[in-house]
């Protein structure tokens, strides 16, 4: 049984001619359809160029507009011609001018001969497949689409909308179950003759003339009705982007195309010299019969679609600038923010860095400069420590830092004295883990040795800012993971809180804490706070502190001793 080819051509005639010759030299009769929009000079030259090939014919020209009936009508005519002109043709392969055979025609023929009476056509029911773009899947078959999507988008959209509002639905002809799939197929003579000579063909054609993109559904649906055995896959390798447009293969794809083992690929970039020189290329005989496997190609292009539609989380750039207010995660990776810990434990940063493998920054948002982890002036990604540059776009500074360091966990200290403009981000980012010991700002004031009267204004300011921060964190729509303690609460049991903090950063790798960092001497703090109260400034964020509490905290911070039982 012989293989015949129907080729649809509308552009790049030089390449198309090359492809016709490939098929013809492989012993396939070729029936060519040229779009009637192509001007006559080009057409005549194309015909004249192929004059020397006996088994190449041209079929009646139709106007082929994307998504419209013309393509199907053209295919029907060409197939009809092919089947009548060449009695020996047992199978028809539908190709386009930009389809490139990757393997010799003889291998394709051997492959087809191995499965006689089988139709290779990708065809799936609309209910089960999410391929379609633009929300029109089932509706392709139940609405009318008289307007071209590309040229008359407004009319197209408007008419669809109108039908949806009125609730018009077309009846699908009896005996048809709508199927869709790649428009490139290889069908047997029996199936094609059954489709073309179907007693109901006029009715079906009339119906499909108003279906959207009928070239993806006409043969797919009718093959289901007539075919004896269907292999639901296309022998033509083609990938589509998220808008449903075909991806184009370029010179640099030569390797993945070779490895795909597919017989034909489309679309090929017309100037892809390397591809046209390299293919078709015979597969290694020793390896036995190679079957098409599109795994690698699928992975690469599916990733492309995902990257295009979702982008990379936490990246803010020229072409990706998500609306922070609606974003799920804002920064690229989880990070921890600690407020008040470094006031209570002077060596907290070093201690934390030793306990975990995280990068622990100082006050990144301090007024004087950004205190990076290693005291660097310029941090990874060439981020400057200049406070001016940082505050110019404070949120951007944080997202940039988290993006460049997303391979390592980041922690930084924060406080009411720092630039507060990232408050909102800290509260709303699902990646933020915020730990606050409220009222800890009173400790440096207390340690400064100045009297309550002198620091009263400063204390009031810090308390106001911290309270604002807490309010933002506690907003109903805030997504950050919050751990807020008053100073008094924290002193009740510092060990447990610090253990939790380490656990959260280290995950399963965290271990039980040994020595806690050294705490500043707080004796006298309750008195100091009382004096602030006497000045009229109530430090309500510290909680109720008493002298004993602080003493107890020091005791609790010793490692716990467990009695280990002996046998």
């Amino acid at each position, binding site marked *: 049984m012989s293989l015949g080819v129907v080729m649809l051509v509308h552009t790049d005639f030089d390449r198309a001619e090359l492809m016709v010759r490939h098929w013809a030299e492989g012993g396939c009769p070729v029936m060519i359809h040229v779009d009637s929009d192509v001007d006559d000079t080009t057409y005549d030259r194309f015909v004249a160029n192929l004059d020397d090939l006996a088994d190449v014919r041209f079929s009646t020209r139709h106007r082929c507009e994307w998504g419209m009936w013309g393509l199907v009508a053209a295919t029907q005519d060409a197939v009809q011609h092919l089947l009548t002109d060449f009695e020996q043709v047992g199978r028809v392969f539908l190709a386009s001018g930009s389809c490139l055979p990757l393997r010799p025609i003889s291998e394709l023929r051997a492959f087809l001969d191995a499965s006689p009476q089988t139709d290779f056509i990708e065809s799936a029911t609309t209910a089960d497949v999410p391929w379609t773009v633009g929300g029109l899947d089932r509706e392709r078959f139940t609405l009318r689409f008289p307007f071209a999507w590309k040229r008359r988008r407004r009319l197209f959209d408007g008419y669809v909308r109108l039908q949806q509002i009125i609730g018009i639905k077309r009846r699908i002809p009896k005996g048809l179950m709508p199927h869709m799939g790649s428009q490139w197929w290889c069908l047997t003579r029996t199936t094609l003759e059954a489709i073309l000579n179907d007693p109901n063909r006029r009715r079906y054609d009339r119906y499909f003339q108003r279906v959207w993109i009928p070239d993806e559904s006409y043969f797919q649906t009718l093959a289901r009705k007539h075919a004896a055995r269907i292999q639901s896959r296309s022998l033509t390798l083609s990938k589509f*982007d*998220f*808008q449903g*447009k075909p*991806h*184009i293969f*370029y*010179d*640099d794809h030569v390797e993945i195309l070779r490895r795909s083992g597919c017989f034909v690929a489309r679309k090929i*970039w017309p*100037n892809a010299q390397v591809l046209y020189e390299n293919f078709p290329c015979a597969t290694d005989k020793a390896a036995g019969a190679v079957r098409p496997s599109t795994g690698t190609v699928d992975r*690469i*292009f599916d*990733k*492309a*679609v995902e*990257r*295009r*539609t*979702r*982008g*990379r989380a936490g*990246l*803010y*750039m*020229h*072409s*990706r*600038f*998500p*609306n922070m207010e*609606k*974003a799920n995660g804002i920064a690229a990776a989880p990070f921890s923010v600690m407020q008040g810990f470094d006031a209570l434990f002077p060596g907290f940063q070093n201690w934390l860095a030793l306990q975990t493998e995280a990068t622990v920054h100082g006050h990144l948002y301090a007024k004087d400069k950004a205190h990076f982890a290693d005291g*660097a*002036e*310029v*941090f*990874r*990604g*060439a*981020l*400057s420590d*200049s406070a*001016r*540059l940082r505050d*110019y*776009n404070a949120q*951007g*500074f944080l997202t*940039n*830092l988290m*993006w*460049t360091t997303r391979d390592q966990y980041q922690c930084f200290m924060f406080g009411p004295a720092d630039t507060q403009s990232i408050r909102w981000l800290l509260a709303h980012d699902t990646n933020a883990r915020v730990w606050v010991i409220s009222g800890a700002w009173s400790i440096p004031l207390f340690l400064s040795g100045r009297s309550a009267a002198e620091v009263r204004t400063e204390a009031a300011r810090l308390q106001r800012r911290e309270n604002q921060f807490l309010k933002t964190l506690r907003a109903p729509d805030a997504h950050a993971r919050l751990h807020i303690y008053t100073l008094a609460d924290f002193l009740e049991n510092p060990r447990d809180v610090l253990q939790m903090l380490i656990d959260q950063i280290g995950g399963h790798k965290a271990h039980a804490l040994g020595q806690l960092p050294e705490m500043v001497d707080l004796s006298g703090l309750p008195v100091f706070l009382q004096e602030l109260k006497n000045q009229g400034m109530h430090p309500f964020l510290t909680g109720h502190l008493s002298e004993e509490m602080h003493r107890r905290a020091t005791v609790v911070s010793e490692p716990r001793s467990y009695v280990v039982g002996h046998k």
Partner: protein
Amino acid sequence: MRATFTDAWLAYRLRWKRRRILLRIWRNRKQIERRSDRTKQIMPGAILAFSTVRNEMLRLPHFLDYYRKLGVAHFLIVDNASTDGTADFLTKQSDVSLWTTSHSYKLSRFGMDWLGWLQWQYGSGHWCLTVDADELLVYPQSDNRDLQALTAHLDSQGLPTFGALMLDMYPQGPLTNVAYTHRQDPVTALGWFDGSGYRHRVHPVFGNQWIQGGVRDRVFFQADPDRAPSLNKTPLVKWHWRNVYVTSTHHMLPRRLNQVFDWPSKTKMTGALLHTKFLPDIAARSSEELDRQQHFENSALYTGYYRNLIAGPDLWTDRSVAYKGWQQLVELGLITPGDWR
């Protein structure tokens, strides 16, 4: 309601702004004189490059080779009173059409009036690349796919513009010590850049992203970040006679041409312009700029900046990134291939 009104009013004002600019381009059309006109060579569908140059003999040979290889079919160049033989060199090139002028660069909106007139005449329907001699365009796959392939892809996606981030390239060591020979790839002499620290925000008027940052921001503009150079550019445009560039190639009108990004988080393909400003002629150029006072917006503000440049500072830090190609820029999140694979 109010937002709609404000937006309509803005759209109306910008439409007039665009018309004013077009009128201005037309009024200033006689400022440039035809020196060698080879525009008859321009075939339909050819990719055109537009540029204003001044004393660029150091960069031009490589510049032309680079863009020829990328598939630019014709260069339309305005020479602004060069004294180093730039004009003669360009006249000899078979794919360059040259105009000359000695009018003020600043008063012509930094050359945009002159180029605007050329684009208006020759650009319609072509993909037009508007770059300075110190800007080299890279984009995903730029080492093996030319601009023809890129623009065909953009056409198929229905995108009329291609956005690029300016990436300031700098050497390791003081600027005065750069070794650069004729026709050498400048990126080999200026092999470093800042990998992050670019600030993004949406421009309130033009609706595109306004990007600042990079090495010049880090070193020279700490005190006044608002004045730091803009790094967002739209160098590649499918031209329509109605289009105009507003300030250099940073902003365009009509505004929709600025939409080189998708809202909210989809990622269109973008590229980068490797900015080779810091070649050895930087000190000489800076002192000339100080004399001419022809720089952007506010020349006085840039005085300190140029003084710094003349001193030949070292811009390199151990956090700088060595340039390795477009794949690296994609990895760093500075450019993106979109769905072009």
